């Protein structure tokens, strides 16, 4: 006669690709029932890629099916986290959005918005359904970089419809402002706005929502990390020491709220002469590597200072779209690929708690 403990024991051998621990230790096995050799397992996976989920389910069936006395194995996938009818969580993930990735910097002028825009397009090139939220309420730059504007429509149920360009769904406070008006926000207004952009925008089904954060570690950042569970944050820096020093603050902020820092992107790493192709390290070198080394955070890539990047952004066609074969565009695609792999690998490590009763 097969016992539940035997089955559970066998399940501890299953560790999904990239997971930190086995499925039992991660708390993903909700229940095990057995009757006359027929086993029913309730499995609560975190949001994950379908191929990975199917592979894990197959592993469970194979492992348990191989036990003596097991005639039949049924794996029922249940919702994680939380089932309908439980207390509504204020930090509920945005329905339909799989992973939210914040692109931040603690200092302005490092090219964060350019990086966010091109990274979003690079995700799309990899077949992901992507949204880009320009949460830089003080200096929205998405309208210029994508050459889009005009007020988004609002549905009858008071949902804001994002604009679309190059296959991305786009939202920015810039859509609601006149070009010349200064953006002066009090803290609570910023928080309200960020909340609205996360919850009241009709994002639809997305694999990735890239959030271009305002520089710094203030209200907008805090709201973001409190309102939704982020898959992770990416810090953008330039190579000089003063910038990398600031990045440490950004990393510390993410750590305080237990949001993984997926990596660092070093922007304006070096100047690539369009005529002769030589490299000149205008801002010194190695800042990103230093951070990566010191904090154990991967350096996702180095983006050179190339006039084409700026021109592309200013004319409403980011370089990944404008010149997909450009070395910079390919660097962005590599970064996007690495980021997706990192997000996938850490998906299991942080299933949110289940609230009961």
């Amino acid at each position, binding site marked *: 006669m097969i016992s539940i403990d035997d089955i559970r024991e066998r399940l501890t051998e299953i560790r999904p690709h990239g997971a930190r621990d086995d499925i039992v230790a991660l708390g993903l096995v909700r229940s095990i029932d057995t009757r006359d050799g027929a086993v029913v397992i309730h499995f609560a996976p975190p949001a994950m890629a379908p191929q990975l989920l199917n592979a894990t389910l197959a592993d469970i069936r194979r492992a348990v099916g191989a036990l003596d006395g097991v005639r039949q194995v049924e794996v029922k996938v249940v919702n994680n986290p939380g089932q309908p009818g439980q*207390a509504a969580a204020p930090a*509920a993930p945005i329905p339909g959005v799989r992973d939210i990735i914040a692109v931040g910097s603690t200092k302005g002028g490092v090219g964060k918005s350019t990086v966010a825009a091109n990274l979003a397009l690079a995700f799309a090139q990899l077949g992901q359904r992507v949204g880009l939220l320009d949460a830089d309420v003080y200096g929205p730059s998405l309208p210029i970089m994508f050459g889009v504007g005009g007020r988004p429509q609002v549905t009858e149920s008071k949902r804001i419809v994002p604009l679309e360009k190059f296959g991305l769904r786009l939202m920015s406070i810039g859509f609601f402002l006149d070009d010349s008006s200064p953006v002066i926000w009090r803290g609570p207004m910023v928080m309200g706005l960020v909340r609205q952009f996360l919850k009241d925008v009709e994002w639809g089904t997305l694999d990735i929502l890239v959030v271009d954060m305002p520089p710094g570690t203030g209200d907008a950042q805090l709201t973001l990390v409190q309102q939704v*569970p*982020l898959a992770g944050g990416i810090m953008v820096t330039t190579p000089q020491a003063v910038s990398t020093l600031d990045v440490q603050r950004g990393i510390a902020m993410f750590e305080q709220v*237990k949001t993984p820092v997926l990596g660092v992107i070093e922007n304006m790493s070096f100047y690539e002469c369009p005529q002769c192709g030589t490299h000149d390290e205008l801002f010194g070198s190695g800042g990103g590597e230093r951070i990566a080394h010191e904090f154990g955070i991967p350096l996702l890539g180095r983006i050179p200072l190339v006039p084409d990047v700026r021109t592309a952004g200013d004319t409403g066609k980011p370089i990944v779209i404008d010149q997909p074969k450009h070395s910079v565009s390919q660097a962005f695609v590599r970064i996007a690929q690495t980021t997706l792999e990192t997000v996938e690998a850490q998906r299991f*490590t942080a299933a949110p708690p*289940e*609230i*009961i009763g």
Partner: protein
Amino acid sequence: MPSISAPTPRTIKRLAKDSIEIVWQDGHCGVYPNRYLRENCPCAACREGKPRRLLPVVGAPGELYPIQIGVVGRYAISIQWSDQHDTGIYSYDTLRQLCPCDQCQPPARDENNP
């Protein structure tokens, strides 16, 4: 990144009406009386008041209970209490430190008199 691998609750369960049970990912389990949690509310109004400006907690212990518990980002929960106080964000680190079990909060012991 040590703080990210720090304890995270697996389940948070309301027991009867007077306490909350937290089972952590590492298997540790703690039962927090409602009043104890409410009195340790980490929000600014409760922490910075003079001396500690708690909203008056009226009635028997059973009358203070969480109306709603929600997850805040990846690091904390928020509790809306039956006394209408709802601004406290209890980080997992704080909750683990507050764990009232004997293992986490050993009873005061007299060294000369074990």
